[in-house]
């Protein structure tokens, strides 16, 4: 058994934002084992106060550059709840397609650029350009497809402009929808190749199992990315649903010393959100092609290996492509026209939720009689996963010690575990910092 370990990963690479891994073991005793989140608060809930309801989603979409669609949708839905707005079926379907675009976009990025290097034994995606050029080219091709997919519906994928309270500010033309359909159909060979690539790398996915509660959105019509009730599934398959309005009774946020982000828990000491949580809760609602993909990749519910979250993401990419094709066909059959925005029928408070790539996201707002926001609350999925990551660490570290893993091997296993959750810890700055060489 490994008896002495000192791991200090400062600002883990290939995750969004900053997190540290600290493990100290002396004479076989674990003295410290922490997933630390040092990010500063960003005060979005304060920024929206005093803003008109038409502005709130514009601000909250900036919480994240990759989940901007999800934050926009959660924000607009919560605002619509607060203002007594019910959108049309057309708006609902367009938003579902947009949600699919974001999901696929983020998952492609995560699987190919953030996780694949670990599975291929590379320090980053850059060496893979030399050793796996077709794979990297395919990843960038799919990323571009997702950007165009989201832009078609949302105006742009990063901080979309077309989703507004009351419906959609603009809608794609029938020609644009037909072109989108053609692009998605044309991407199927790349999807199939993606499954082959993942299957080839899958033997390098670490084996780890920890019974976990999984939380996600669920409904009785579809996979639940855009709308539903909160669903919990326990390792023994026991399921329970809760109204979204009761989200605080499920999340139960609390503060811990090693994290500036709050932790959450429900029935067990922690729970997981994300693709694996959705898969475990909603497997029956996957399209047939996605179920086939899951079977091909050896994923079945209820899977309690967090490293398989990336595999669940790839299954969801397949689901998002095929489910979008179904919805687009419905829109083409019915025709798409610009509709007036549905106006508020009341001013009060409301909470709603969507699934963003990393998991279930909650937004809640209260508006005064003039439509200005007097308070907001956002609980993001990565915050909900931090506690689960810590509990994974608590079990994984002793297992790695018992297996006589070296310090480097342990550091890699813990890093890969965090990356598997695809955490999105903060938005940082984008300014360049350069030195002239010519």
């Amino acid at each position, binding site marked *: 058994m490994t008896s002495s370990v000192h791991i200090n990963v400062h600002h883990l690479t290939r995750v969004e934002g900053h997190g540290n891994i600290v493990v100290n073991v002396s004479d076989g005793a674990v003295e410290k084992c922490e997933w630390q989140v040092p990010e500063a608060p960003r005060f979005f809930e304060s920024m929206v106060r005093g803003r008109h309801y038409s502005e709130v989603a514009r601000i909250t979409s900036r919480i994240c550059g990759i989940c901007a669609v999800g934050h926009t949708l959660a924000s607009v839905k919560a605002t619509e709840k607060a203002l007594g707005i019910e959108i049309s079926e057309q708006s609902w379907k367009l938003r579902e397609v947009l949600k699919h675009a974001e999901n696929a976009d983020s998952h492609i990025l995560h699987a190919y*650029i953030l996780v694949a290097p670990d599975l291929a034994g590379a320090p980053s995606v850059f060496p893979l350009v030399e050793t796996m050029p077709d794979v990297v080219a395919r990843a960038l091709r799919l990323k571009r497809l997702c950007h165009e997919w989201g832009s078609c519906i949302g105006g742009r994928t990063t901080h979309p402009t077309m989703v507004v309270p009351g419906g959609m500010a603009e809608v794609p033309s029938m020609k644009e929808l037909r072109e989108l359909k053609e692009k998605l159909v044309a991407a199927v060979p790349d999807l199939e190749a993606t499954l082959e690539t993942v299957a080839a790398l899958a033997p390098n996915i670490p084996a780890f199992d920890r019974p976990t509660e999984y939380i996600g959105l669920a409904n009785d019509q579809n996979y639940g990315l855009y709308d539903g009730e909160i669903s919990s599934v326990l390792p023994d398959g026991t399921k329970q649903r809760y109204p979204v309005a009761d989200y605080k009774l499920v999340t139960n946020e609390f503060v811990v010393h090693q994290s500036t982000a709050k932790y959450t828990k429900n029935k067990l000491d922690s729970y997981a959100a994300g693709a694996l949580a959705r898969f475990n809760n909603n497997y029956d609602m996957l399209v047939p092609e996605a179920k086939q993909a899951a079977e091909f990749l050896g994923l079945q519910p209820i899977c309690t290996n967090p490293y398989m979250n990336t595999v669940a993401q790839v299954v969801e990419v397949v689901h998002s492509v095929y489910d979008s094709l179904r919805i687009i066909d419905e829109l083409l059959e019915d025709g798409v026209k610009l509709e007036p925005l549905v106006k508020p029928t009341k001013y009060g408070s409301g909470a709603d939720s969507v699934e963003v790539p990393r998991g279930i996201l909650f937004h809640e707002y209260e508006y005064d009689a003039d439509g200005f926001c007097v308070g907001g609350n956002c609980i993001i999925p990565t915050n909900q996963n931090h506690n689960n990551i810590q509990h994974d660490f608590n079990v994984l570290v002793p297992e790695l010690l018992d297996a006589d893993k070296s310090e480097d091997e342990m550091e890699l296993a813990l890093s890969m575990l965090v990356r598997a959750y695809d955490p999105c810890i903060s938005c940082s700055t984008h300014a360049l910092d350069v*030195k002239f060489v010519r």
Partner: protein
Amino acid sequence: MSGVRYLVGLGNVTAGDDAVGVRVIDHIWANGLDRGFTAIDLGANALNLISYLNDETEAMLVVDATQLGLEPGEFLVFTPDQVVTQKEQAGLSTHEGDALRVLDLAVTAGYAIPTLAIMGIEPLAMACGGLELSDRLAARVPDYAAAAIEHLLKM
């Protein structure tokens, strides 16, 4: 050539002057100045630059806050081969943006890079939670837009 010219703004609008690239695009759109080119706000997702690197792109000017050692508010237009990035980053990501690293990936992956330049604007303050540019940079947004458009159309 008669391809598309892109003027791309990058930045985080909740981080003060980091958003100057996006604000330049906002100004262009608000004043209908996008004639002869397409203005793109990529916000906090620099990786999507790759979506615009294709055979149809004739030229691209990226506008971004850049620490150049100039007086805050001053700007410089340069090409990627003239500089090396000094930015400490945890890695390639869509959050912690570094357009230079994204361009490196595109070059390495064999993408056709069009005539491309970066307009770097020296920030004054990039405080998290700041929804507005500093007064110094805000006052010059029209100048930045005019300079960017002039440069792009000459590229």
